[in-house]
């Protein structure tokens, strides 16, 4: 590819390349590409409530290299310390979009789980691809991913795996000579009455521009229980658009805990459809923005069936000239009587120039419901600081204790001990940039 190609040409070439390779997704890719051609990226934001606070023009403007061949992929020993990692985890890893043998630890034949690559599977499960994250959404990002993704993971959970041996899907991007786009794709099927912990991480080791446009689809079957820990840790120049679509059946339980630690523009667009009575959903998140990062949590929940419960708690810590967006919507459909829904977003603003825009909305069409939401923003509690100063702590230590405790409320939702350790380290790493 020469540098005279426009972005559109590049997307088209990548799509045609996928079609030429020919896989079981060709029909879906064709539909997706047509959709992408017609809607494109949501650059025009006027009147577009979904993108009111996030300008993706820099993402649309940049030109990316899309098809790459594996070059010296780092070994686990080189980058292990920078990754969430556990000896007992089952990891499937992709480096710059390409499956990494060296980082992956799958295939030890543990019961209750099957992990395969999307590019090398004949599993009938792949027919589910595109059924939860539909290609005809408004934004175009999901459609583009579907049209051009080269590889990804398909995960079947059909037993019980404990929190200390989670499944880990890892997408790493590394420093490259020019901006590169990757399209991580994950399909997760949690079968009836299964119970599992899944970690999905998007880690950027680069300092230049990288764009990862990810789509994750999750089906949680009847009575199944799935904890999904999601980590976004990108460079200050990189872009990440993550589209996660979850469908829950009767009496299922889904818990998402999301950690967003940075990106120049990062968006976590999560939608959960509570499509079975008695289902339960907990969505928690911690976002920390620094420098001129922009992180957008776009969370929406649809209560389609009665007797379902949802709980959301998102917390933000902002510093530098960064900006965070929280947009959480709870939609209670007419038939979803006896719904209980709570939604809360809290923000700590630690510097002049940081800004948070939060929009927690409730749309309710059923009457026998209890729904609440709350949002708050402020600085570190002066009274608490004063107390600690009076006990002889210095101001920085006092603030650190308070902020760490504030972040811990979310981290403590993670059952996997080895992951909690990594998360605390990430929080600590970001803390020194806070000035008191």
């Amino acid at each position: 590819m020469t540098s005279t190609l426009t972005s559109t040409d590049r997307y088209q070439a990548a799509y045609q390349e996928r079609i030429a390779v020919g896989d079981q997704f060709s029909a879906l890719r064709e539909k997706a590409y047509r959709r992408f051609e017609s809607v494109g990226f949501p650059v025009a934001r006027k009147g577009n409530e979904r993108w009111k606070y996030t300008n993706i023009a820099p993402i649309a403007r940049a030109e990316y290299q899309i098809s790459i061949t594996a070059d010296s992929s780092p070994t686990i020993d080189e980058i292990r310390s920078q990754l969430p990692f556990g000896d007992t985890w089952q990891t499937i890893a992709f480096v710059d979009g390409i499956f990494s043998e060296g980082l992956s630890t799958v295939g030890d034949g543990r019961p209750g789980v099957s992990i395969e690559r999307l590019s090398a599977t004949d599993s009938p499960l792949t027919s589910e691809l595109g059924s939860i994250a539909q290609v005809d959404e408004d934004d175009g990002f999901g459609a583009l991913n579907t049209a051009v993704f080269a590889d990804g993971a398909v995960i079947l959970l059909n037993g019980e795996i404990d929190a200390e041996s989670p499944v880990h899907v890892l997408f790493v991007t590394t420093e490259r000579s020019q901006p590169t786009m990757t399209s991580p794709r994950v399909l997760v099927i949690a079968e009836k009455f299964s119970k599992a912990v899944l970690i999905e991480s998007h880690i950027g080791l680069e300092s230049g521009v990288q764009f990862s446009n990810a789509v994750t689809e999750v089906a949680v079957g009847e009575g199944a229980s799935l904890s999904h820990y999601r980590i976004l840790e990108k460079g200050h120049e990189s872009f990440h658009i993550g589209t996660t679509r979850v469908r829950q059946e009767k009496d299922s339980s889904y818990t998402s805990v999301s950690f967003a630690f940075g990106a120049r523009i990062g968006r976590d667009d999560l939608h959960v459809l509570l499509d079975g009575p008695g289902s339960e959903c907990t969505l928690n998140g911690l976002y920390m923005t620094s420098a001129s990062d922009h992180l957008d949590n776009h969370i929406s929940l649809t209560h389609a069936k009665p007797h379902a419960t949802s709980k959301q708690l998102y917390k933000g810590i902002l510093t530098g000239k960064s900006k965070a967006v929280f947009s959480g919507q709870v939609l209670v459909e007419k038939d979803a009587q006896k719904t209980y829904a709570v939604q809360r977003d809290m923000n700590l603003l630690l510097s002049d120039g940081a800004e948070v825009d939060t929009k927690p909305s409730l749309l309710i069409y059923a009457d026998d419901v209890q729904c609440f939401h709350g949002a708050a923003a402020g600085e570190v509690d002066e009274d608490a600081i004063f107390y600690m100063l009076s006990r002889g702590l210095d101001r920085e230590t006092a603030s650190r204790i308070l902020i760490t405790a504030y972040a811990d409320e979310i981290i403590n939702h993670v059952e996997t001990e080895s992951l909690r350790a990594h998360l605390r380290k990430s929080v600590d790493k970001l803390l020194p940039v806070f000035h008191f």
Partner: protein
Amino acid sequence: MTTGPTISRETDLSDSTYKWGFVTDVETDIAPKGVNEDIVRLISSKKDEPEWLLEWRLKSLDHWVKMAEAQGEPEWANLKFPQIDYQDMYYYAAPVASEAPKSLDEVDPEMLEAFEKLGIPLHEREKLAGVAVDAVFDSVSVATTFQDKLEELGVIFCSFNDAVRNHPDLIKKYLGSVVPYSDNFYAALNSAVFSDGSFAYVPPGVRCPIELMTYFRINTEGTGQFERTLIIADKGAYVSYLEGCTAPIRKTSQLHAAVVELVCLDDAEIKYSTLQNWYPGDKNGQGGVFNFVTKRGAARGVNSKISWTQVETGSAITWKYPSVLLQGDNSVGEFYSVALTNNYQQADTGTKMTHIGKNTKSTIVAKGISAGHGQNTYRGQVKIMPSAEGASNYTQCDSLLIGDECGAHTIPYIEVGNPTAHMEHEASTSKVSDDQLFYCLQRGLSEEDAHHMIITGWSREVFKELPFEFAMEASQLLKVSLEGAVG
């Protein structure tokens, strides 16, 4: 309020519980349908307006036409309504009167009877009630009571047209200074074709001793009502202003697009209360007023305060966001609202608090009640600019659902750009508690009375902000508006 003899009424709609639905036979002076430069010039010349005002109207019209061509009505609100044909509507309808009435005796007796039926204290005896009323009938102000007493204090309270004639400097200085004609689609239309409205100016240091009140009524069929209100509280002044609105029962929908501008200088306070009871349409959603109103106050001065209180029970469609620009340091903005939607009513209402000055403070208490097929949306923005050191906001939005066909929605937009700001938002949605209902029922109350009592109690945080008589009336309005929604 008592129901007097019906003056004239469309009998096929007489089953409605809307008791303000009479039509008064008053000779009206109507301009041809449609809006264009000629109509704007006609309205302006009918009012004997100065050249600069006509120019402002024409600029507004120009802007509106451009907006109408480019994108039309704003579509972001959670409202569904048929296409409005802006050319199939009268933009000017005034009761015929050869000269402005000098006293109440000269006002058309039928109109007086109409107002009496509405319970407006227009007569001399009403001086006891301590309310000065400016009644606006199809956008033209017909009489203003209590002038003499206000004049003694230097308070100007008159119709907008009189103000243009007698106080052009004030109008020129403040008109469009809070809501520019380019603000939004409906404000642009209003700025082009507004026919009258109310004007109040309270001079420095004066505490207006009585409540000022404007009464709005649409009478002529097929008219749009476009009034403008401008209230200025000079340094250290205080004024409490009340606004009531009704319309006759009509099978077709009517458009109301008003603009209200408030200006508050140093240490001044304006308290603005509204009882909005435009005809809501019948049980099947036929007819009713489309209410698209732009209300905004500028708390410009240091320590100034603007407080909006509204009880919205009428209108088929309500699109209204009384806002405060908190420009002065230590300025305060408040918004208290009860909005009710029954049958097929739709409301998308809330407020906008824009914190600019230091230590500015805003409070929002919004209560939404949905019944029947009503759709009720709270949409509010709290914006804390980087300059608003130490700003604080408290927002509470509660929604109540009665019946399983209605909807209640809460959409706040919170933008915080200063780390020293404190912002809290709480919202809840539920139905009337079964336990509370059970208690009332077993004490012998009917289901309807029980609902009324519980809802009035639930709304008390807003009602207590209203002047006493208004609060009584508001409670009654809720009761009437909810008739048939329970049981």
